[in-house]
């Protein structure tokens, strides 16, 4: 059954929300009162409900199946987190209530900060960044602010080739020139090349660890020392924190700043693309430059520092309105409390165990570009598909028909036709076995020359393959009423 757009439904005057009649008072809108209709459709409540329930049924989700999506940490999203985030007195607080009326909320933020600092072994944390990339921005701004405070105008940030695209984008936004450091044969950063690029005008390095090849940068301490030696700072992309929880603390590795994706590692959840939350832990060297606001603890309980003055005088400023992604804080703290010190360590162990189990289960049929044990994700290249006429993309789309979400494809860029598989700790051995079986079935099928089958995949999804090129060439980004002048319509959608 096709689901028309909400705009293609409804009848003017139909109600989806009941309200009282507005009071009759004289308008205070001056000359700004609206005179034209907006063009929204009117539907009843049951219609709206049914519309979105039907839409939802076209989605794949963790609750319905396995997501072997590398670099994304698609783990179980506990429902208790959703429940406590909606408690009266937590989910409904206004950010500008007098602090005397939100002591529990401030305590919660302070408590979460304590967990994050303890887990990472870092002395400070900036809570307000709204997502991982926002956290990166926070970290690099702190680095730049620290350099500026010392009167240094450094120019470059070093980033490994395999880095997430947000790393260079962030560095650029802070006015830095980005330089890429190549990888060694074993998938880790090339220390020699790194050493060559390092110098007194380098502001910092941004490293993901475990890196996006699913490998732990075993030279990390050496790297940190080299960075510090030239007076630069060590930014660690925390996207893969899941793999090392309770096994090693970034603070012990010499990290100066690291963002933590609460929606990944602490499952707050993904929600089809957000909202995220990206607190940043900071070393002593960077702590003073943290953004406002932050929570302090004084005689009269908890307080909020909301302005760049006094104890926040070195702060590089404010990153978003209000105090941070409180809704995500609640969920992340509930998740952490549920696991505790023992459970957090178990997360890392089981995540790495599962990844290696898949690696071993497939390594006679898929080629691993890098040898040995992996961390939380298993990386393969497409050399095993050579001459089959099946691409990584085709294989991924065929996985849909087997009941799986595709793995991460063509990332990291350093590996040809990369397939990055991150099972997370949530999945059972039965699920992994079934998945390995399905992959082997598909790989055999590819070798058997059934390239056409793959090219046509998916066969059983709500949609067949979509024309993404056409979408980008002629972007139609909104619905437009049919009765509108078709000419202007075309203009609207065809203009560049």
């Amino acid at each position, binding site marked *: 059954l096709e689901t028309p*757009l909400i705009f293609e439904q409804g009848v003017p005057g139909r109600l989806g929300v009941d309200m009282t009649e507005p009071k009759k008072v004289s308008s205070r809108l001056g000359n700004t009162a609206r005179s034209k209709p907006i063009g929204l*459709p009117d539907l009843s409540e049951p219609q709206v409900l049914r519309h979105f329930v039907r839409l939802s049924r076209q989605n794949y989700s963790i609750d319905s199946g396995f997501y072997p999506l590398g670099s994304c940490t698609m783990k179980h999203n506990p429902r208790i987190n959703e429940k406590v985030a909606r408690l009266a007195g937590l989910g409904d607080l206004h950010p500008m209530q007098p602090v005397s009326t939100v002591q529990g909320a401030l305590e919660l933020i302070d408590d979460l900060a304590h967990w994050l600092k303890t887990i990472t072994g870092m002395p400070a944390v900036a809570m307000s960044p709204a997502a991982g990339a926002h956290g990166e921005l926070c970290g690099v701004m702190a680095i730049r602010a620290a350099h500026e405070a010392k009167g240094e105008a450094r120019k470059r940030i070093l980033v490994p080739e395999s880095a997430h695209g947000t790393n260079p984008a962030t560095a650029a936004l802070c006015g830095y020139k980005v330089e890429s450091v190549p990888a060694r044969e074993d998938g880790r950063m090339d220390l020699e090349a790194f050493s060559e690029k390092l110098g007194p005008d380098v502001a910092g390095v941004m490293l993901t660890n475990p890196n996006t090849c699913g490998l732990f940068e075993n030279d990390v301490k050496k790297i940190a020392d080299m960075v510090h030696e030239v007076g630069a700072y060590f930014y660690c992309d925390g996207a893969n924190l899941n793999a090392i929880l309770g096994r090693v603390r970034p603070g012990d590795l010499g990290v100066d700043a690291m963002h933590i994706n609460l929606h990944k590692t602490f499952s707050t959840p993904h929600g089809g693309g*957000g909202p995220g939350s990206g607190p940043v832990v900071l070393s002593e060297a960077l702590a003073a430059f943290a953004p406002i606001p932050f929570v302090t603890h004084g005689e009269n309980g908890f307080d909020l520092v909301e302005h760049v003055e006094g104890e926040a005088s070195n702060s590089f400023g404010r990153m978003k309105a209000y105090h941070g992604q409180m809704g995500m804080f609640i969920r992340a703290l509930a998740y952490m409390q549920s696991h505790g010190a023992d459970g957090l360590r178990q997360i890392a162990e089981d995540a790495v165990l599962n990844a290696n189990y898949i690696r071993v289960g497939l390594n006679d049929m898929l080629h691993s570009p890098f040898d040995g044990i992996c961390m939380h994700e298993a990386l393969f290249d497409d050399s095993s598909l050579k001459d089959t006429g099946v691409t990584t993309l085709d294989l991924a789309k065929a996985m849909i028909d087997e009941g799986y979400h595709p793995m991460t494809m063509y990332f990291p860029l350093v590996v040809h036709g990369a397939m990055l598989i991150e099972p997370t700790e949530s999945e059972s051995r039965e699920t992994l076995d079934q998945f390995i079986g399905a992959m082997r079935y598909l790989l055999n099928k590819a070798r058997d020359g059934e390239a056409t089958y793959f090219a046509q995949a998916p066969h059983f999804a709500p949609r067949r393959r979509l024309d993404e090129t056409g*979408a*980008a060439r002629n972007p139609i980004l909104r619905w437009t009423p049919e009765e509108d002048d078709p000419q202007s319509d075309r203009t609207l959608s065809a203009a560049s």
Partner: protein
Amino acid sequence: MRYMPHTADERAIMLQEIGVGSVDDLFVDIPAEARLTGLLDLPLHASEMDVEKNFRTLAGKNLSPYSAPCFLGAGAYQHHVPSVADHLIQRSEFLTAYTPYQPEISQGTLQALFEFQTQVALITGMEVANASMYDGATSCAESVLMACRVTRRKKAILSGNLHPHYRDVTRTTLQFTEFEATELSPTLEGQEDFEAHIGKDIACVVVQNPDFFGRVQDFTDLAEKCHDAGALLVVVVNEIVSLGAMMSPGEMGADIVAGEGQSIGVPLSFGGPYVGLLATRQKYVRQMPGRLCGETVDQDGQRGFVLTLSTREQHIRREKATSNICTNAGLCSLAFTVHMSLLGETGFTNLAKINHSEAAATAELLNALEGVEVINDTFFNEFTLRLSANASDVVEKLAAKGILGGVPVSRLLPDAEVDNLLLVAVTETCAADDIEKLVSALKEIL
């Protein structure tokens, strides 16, 4: 641990399959001296029952605006969110889905985003909108960056009556770029003199409507002046309900609208997550930050939706991306879309009228009190009072009576001499007896 399936036996079998002797062998790449041997100094795992208790205890230490008359605004507004919206965002298929990079199995999220983009474009009077930003403040900052890219100019002018947080965030965002902002001073009366600042080097002027003090203005003239100078007009809207009763920024000639969508569908949640709106003209779409969902067809010719124009994004453009933003506000934008769908034209405009009329009636009541003066000539659902006493003190006294009476202007503008000013917002959630309580409490206090 209830979330992890492996038993000790299973772990042993799996380690054997992998060919290692122990779990520690999987972590050999970690430098030996940094490996943790014991557990972190944190509590052990807790049952769901205990976790729930912990949070009930924390919640008990706060005053819930649901159980107190609440007149707080200043950029975040209490509105009634229909239960259907919160129900739907908790559906597994929305809640636990990944970013819709695989469109064949993500049409639910994608179509909802397409509907979101359309709704935002319609209410702002713009041609296109993106699939949401972190919040209104970051959306404002991104708008300035975008205007600089579009105009290839480097200076922005920020209205003094822009929400102080939005100004702060814009300043923070620009500080290490090649761009800069001129910030005007807050003004309680009269028009701001933008003209004096608009020159050939100006990328954009940023104004807010209703402004921080609640006043509403027609910016049509300003838009013309901007366009004459080759600059863009950025209009910030952080009480999006106002658009149900007011001329849209598009009608006024805005080039970019940066909005905070929290009022529709999203709970107050102590300040986040909210949903940033960013709408503009079709011609600027390739300079727009954030995610975009577009219509296309599948192999069988059926209509479908995909994330599109990803060449602007970090995955491909890396350091040349239009912005470093990678996520959107996902579930919040879905809640917005559901709530807006429930409201429809009739409901959205009626909701705006109710907000306005309640606020207008309340303003009159308050203005009649001794020691209280409403300073706004115009407003939508929020206005500023000049009190005969320190506003922070008054707010504390009201809180002691269980009333959340407003936001002292000095909390957001500590440097300005505004100690007696109080922002008061009145929405459909303020019942007659809530208003009565505020009035009589103010009578007592002042």
